[in-house]
Each structure stands twice: as structure tokens, then as C-alpha cells.
């Protein structure tokens, strides 16, 4: 059998493919067939939060921070309720991370404030003495890419039926409004203004007042949404 195969490269390759693909078919397909449903209260990200999420990805925050609380007492005591599958249904890509050089962030919105994040990103040691995290001063001057975030929201709405502009709880209110480009950007800027009001960096405040959203504002919007 093997001698026969070793002289027939085509069949050899086919056999290799079957052997390799077998596990993938059995492992991956069943979970895809069973569509993940959102946990009650889980909402799609707003445009500003998506822009912040993209800042989080751009600077690879996920290389050092996980977003996955394991079902151990030591973790639920430290970070809060363990993570559920349905909480991630609007996460594209997932950001679980694989290494905790810093703490888990899945519920960081419950116990850290805008002010804390602002200080932390500018000088981590000022709020956590002994921290080995780099400072991210460029986030205070770089402008967040709201356009790409809007394009992303529109894409997931169109392609994956992510429920923007929908009433999720049946209370007659639209939960996360996307709307057209102009209104979406305007809403994002309003949200940014609300966050900037709680910040103290004057340059950031000025930029937001001038209709620009620095990366730090978007990032904080995203971090505050993690609950």
C-alpha cells in the first residue's frame, strides 16, 4: 500500500489532504452549524467603540492582555463573572489573547474609569507603580479612523446581519443606531465629546471640540464598553 502510494504523487497528495483535513471537519463544522446566539444585553459596538477597538488591535494590546475570564474562583474574584460564548458574537476578530503580561480586560469597564485610562495610557507607572507596560503618548495626537470604523459597521450589518438599527429587547427603542454616514459620524463625535468632558488633557479636548477624535478617546470608549 505505502510502496504503491510513494510512487504515485497525485494519490499521495490526496491521501495527505484527507488525513490532514479529517480532524478539521469533525472539530470545526459542528460548532459552525450551531450558530452562536448573543447573551441577553449584548449589543453591537458603536462606530466610536469600533474605532477604539481598531486602535486596540493596531497597537496589539491583545499581545499582553487577555479578554477571557476562565471559570476559576481566582479569576472571577479578580476580574468578575467568567466569560460566556454569547458575549463574543459581535467580536470580529475575537480578542481573547494568549498571554497575560498584564491583567485580563474582559470586564475592565466595570472597575476602571475614563480618567484612570487616560493616566494609564500616558504613563502606566503613575497609576500602577511597577508596571512594565509601554507608554502610548502617540494615542493622544493620532486621529482615530472613524471612516474605517463606519465602513466596518456597515459591512457587518450588510454581510452578517449584525443588528444595527434594530430593537433588540422589544421595548420600542433602537439599541445601537448606525444610520447613514453623516449621522453615524455625528453620533460618534457626540460620544467622543462626552468622553472628552471627563478627560483633562487640553490638546485632546481641543481636538474633539474641533471635530477630530484622537485615538485615546476612541480607545477609552471601547474599554469602557467592556463589561
Amino acid at each position: 500500500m505505502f510502496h504503491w502510494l510513494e510512487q504515485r504523487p497525485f494519490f499521495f497528495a490526496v491521501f495527505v489532504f484527507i488525513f490532514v483535513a479529517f480532524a478539521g471537519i469533525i472539530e470545526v463544522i459542528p460548532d459552525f452549524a450551531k450558530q452562536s446566539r448573543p447573551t441577553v444585553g449584548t449589543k453591537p459596538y458603536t462606530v466610536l467603540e469600533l474605532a477604539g477597538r481598531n486602535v486596540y488591535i493596531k497597537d496589539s494590546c491583545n499581545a499582553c492582555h487577555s479578554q477571557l475570564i476562565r471559570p476559576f474562583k481566582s479569576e472571577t474574584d479578580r476580574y468578575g463573572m467568567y466569560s460566556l460564548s454569547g458575549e463574543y458574537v459581535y467580536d470580529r476578530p475575537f480578542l481573547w489573547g494568549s498571554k497575560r503580561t498584564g491583567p485580563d480586560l474582559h470586564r475592565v469597564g466595570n472597575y476602571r474609569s475614563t480618567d484612570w485610562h487616560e493616566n494609564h495610557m500616558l504613563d502606566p507607572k503613575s497609576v500602577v507603580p511597577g508596571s512594565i507596560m509601554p507608554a502610548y503618548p502617540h494615542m493622544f495626537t493620532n486621529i482615530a479612523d472613524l471612516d474605517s470604523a463606519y465602513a466596518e459597521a456597515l459591512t457587518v450589518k450588510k454581510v452578517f446581519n449584525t443588528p444595527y438599527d434594530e430593537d433588540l429587547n422589544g421595548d420600542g427603542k433602537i439599541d445601537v443606531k448606525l444610520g447613514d454616514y453623516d449621522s453615524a459620524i455625528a453620533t460618534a463625535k457626540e460620544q467622543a465629546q462626552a468622553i472628552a468632558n471627563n478627560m483633562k488633557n487640553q490638546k485632546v479636548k481641543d481636538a474633539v471640540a474641533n471635530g477630530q477624535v484622537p485615538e485615546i478617546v476612541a480607545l477609552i470608549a471601547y474599554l469602557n464598553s467592556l463589561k
Partner: protein
Amino acid sequence: MQNGARIEYDYSVAKAFTFATILFGIIGMTIGVILAFQLAFPSLNNLAGEYGTFSRLRPLHTNGVAFGFTLSGIFATWYYVGQRVLKVSLKESPFLMTIAKLHFVLYFVTILLAVVTLFMGITTSKEYAELEWPLDILVVLWWVLWGISIFGLIGIRRERTLYISVWYYIAAFIAIAMLYLFNNMEVPTYFVSGGIGSWIHSVSMYSGTNDALVQWWYGHNAVAFVFTVPIIAMIYYFLPKESGQNVYSYKLSILAFWGLLFVYLWAGGHHLIYSTVPDWMQTMGSVMSVVLILPSWGSAINMLLTMKGEWQQLQTNTLIKFMILASTFYMLSTIEGPIQSIKSVNAIAHFTDWIPGHVHDGVLGWVVFMVMAALYHMAPRMYGREIYSKSLMDTQFWLQTTGIVLYFTSMWIAGITQGMMWRAYDEYGSLVYSFIDTVTVLHPYYTIRAVGGLLYLIGFFMFSYNMYKTATSGRILDKEPVNASPVAA
């Protein structure tokens, strides 16, 4: 060509990839050492503004080493081994020659673009699949070119039976093609939204738990089919060639090959233990990771037994030393991985420094050592010259071995310390340590790791220098050596 005439192999593409291996090795490992020092001394993070932080450099390091260094090494050896075991020269087919050259150029350009985009922070964030969609398409293009090169050479071969190494190259080609395609399914937002925002931005086809599942099905098997399978292809060719010994057991090589292919893909689930993927998948990942010891050790034992009765070569031939060390580290890594996959161990090990420790004893000990040994073996035959310096080789060997040992021992201790501290409770039922306590305690281990990495890097520079001197000023050989690569004093 007449029977008995010597085949003139063409090494131009193998040489080009050898150059790329060394270049990307230097870049990738230098960045790795910088990262290690940044963890021990955080003030090093902000020397180059936003472009010098740990977070920007980390994906550059992993991509640089995995897809810059290792893939170049795989391609370099393929363009050398492929011709030889199939008994054909690239020269005989202008078509395959063109494909091979195009393969190199396109590959090189892609890696350079990867460096630029990752520096800019353009990343999909999925580990070892960080490149955005335009680069993914380039990757697929040159991967297909490599496939044409493999099957093209096989198509015009003179040797009827495919040698073991060729099996492994074929497996690497097919598996990575499948894994890469599925994991990198993305929707470019620019086109769907009708031209808004950045054209390079995309969104993953899968969400949340499913995305994680596909990612680690890919992520673990990128390790399998980049860091394991093609490196086994190398050792199956270069160890017997260098030592002049036959492979110990043909049956064992068949068993290990098909066993590895069948079991490896199941093991991805061990990255997701205690996560939100279904429990049966976590258990399956855990169990199959333990089963994986069998085919892994099968290959390694087959290699070690190939040296049966010839162990004195360890003292006389430095290259044998490199290869045996590589096989030994392969055994170490493939027992360590399964141990980490056991649920109770994983509860402590996951998210800690033990994981990078494990990756690095595998990559530094097994992959890089084997690739260097392969290139050392190829050099006298490609350039027709003796290897420049034996003493440099020996010094390099011991320097790098010391480096690896410092690296993995410090990371084992760091990881287990961290894991135990995270879960420590006092007698009143409260957590003993705040998170930052578990960070600051690691400083000595991070320093040791950085020093270990630095020693290894210095060794790699010695290797690069030795290769450069071999190619340019090694003593000229009048005929090709049969086994044991000739080394100048």
C-alpha cells in the same frame, strides 16, 4: 542525459533563499532580543516613538522568525533537497526555473511589505496570521508557485519512489494551504461599504468563539506544518547524508508520518481549554495532544537510532552535534507540549510565560538548529568550498546551547511562579497577590531570558559570518564531498 552521467544541479534559487534565511533570521531574532530586554527594562519601549514599543515589535518578531527565517530555510532546503532526491536539475526545465525565481522574488517582496505594514500597525490581530488581505493574496500566490515547483519537479523526476523528505514537503504544502485559506477569510470593508475608509481594512468572516476555534485550529498547526513537518523533512535528508548512515527504520518513518498527519490537527483545541468552546473539543484537544507524543517521538527516535554504532561522530563532526541536539530538543518540546495540554496543568500554565518558554525551546533548539545545520551542510556543496571555520562553529554551538537553557529554564520558573501566584488564597479566602505583584516578581527571570536570547543571537551572528566567509573565501574543494561536510581548521 545519459545513464551514469552526473546531474548538474542548479543552486541559484537555493542560494537566494539561503541569503533570505540569514537576513530574516538576523532581523527576526534581533527584534526578539529587543523584546526580551523591553520586558525586563520597560524604559526601552519608547526609544523610537510609537514604532518601537513592545506591541508593534511583537508581531514583527513572530512573523519575521516564522515566515521570514523559517520559511526561507524551508524553501532553501527544498530547492536543494528536491533536485537531489528526485534526481533532476532545475536547469532541465526553463519553466520550473522561472517559477522558482518568481517564487523567490514574490516571497521576498511580501515579507518586506509585511515588515512595513506591521510597523504601521496594520494587522488583523490573529496570531501568526496578522497580515491584512492584500498581503494574504500575495502569500497565496507564491504558495501556489511553490506547489507548482514541488509537483513540477516530481513530474519530471528520474527517481521513481518519493523519498521520505518529499512526503513531508508535500504535507507542509497541502496543510498550510488549507489552514491559511480558511483562517484568513476576511471581508474587505472598503468594497462592501462602497468606498469608505481605508482600503486595506477588513473584518473577519467568523465571529467570537468560532473565530477563536478557526484561529487556533490554524495557529497550532502553523506550528505543525511550518515548525515541525518541513524540519523533519530536513533531518530525514541531512542527518543520513552527513553521517553516512541509513535511516534506522523505514516502517517507523511511515508510521510516524501518517500518525503525525492524522493526529496533529486535533491538537489545536488545547489552546482553548477553559474557554467558551464546547467542552468536548477541549477534551479532544487535550487527549489528542498526549497521543501526539507517539508520532513525534517516532521520528525523533528514528533519527537518534540512525546514529547507532556511529556515536563517535558526535565528537568528530560538529554538524552531527547540531542535528542530534535538534532532535533532542524536538523530543523535549513534544513531551512538554502534551504536559501543558493536560487540563489541570493547563489551568496553571495557560496565559503565563511557560508558553513562550515552550515555543522557544522548540524553535531555538529544534527549528533554528536544524535549519543552520542544513545550511552548513549545503554550503560546501553549493559553493564548492570548505566551511570557513570549525572553531567558530563549536563556539557558536556552545554559546547558543547555553542561551537556550537560560531561556527555557527561566521561563519555566517564571510561568509556574506566575500561575501559582494568580491563584493563591490566604486563610480568609481572599486573593493574596494583586496582579502587579505577579509582574514585578518576574524581573530576574526576564533578565535571564534576555541574556539567554542575546547569547543565542550572538551565536547566530557567528553562523552568518561563517556562512558568508564560506561562500566568499572558504578553501576551494576539487570535488563534492560524499558525507561529513569538510570544515577548515
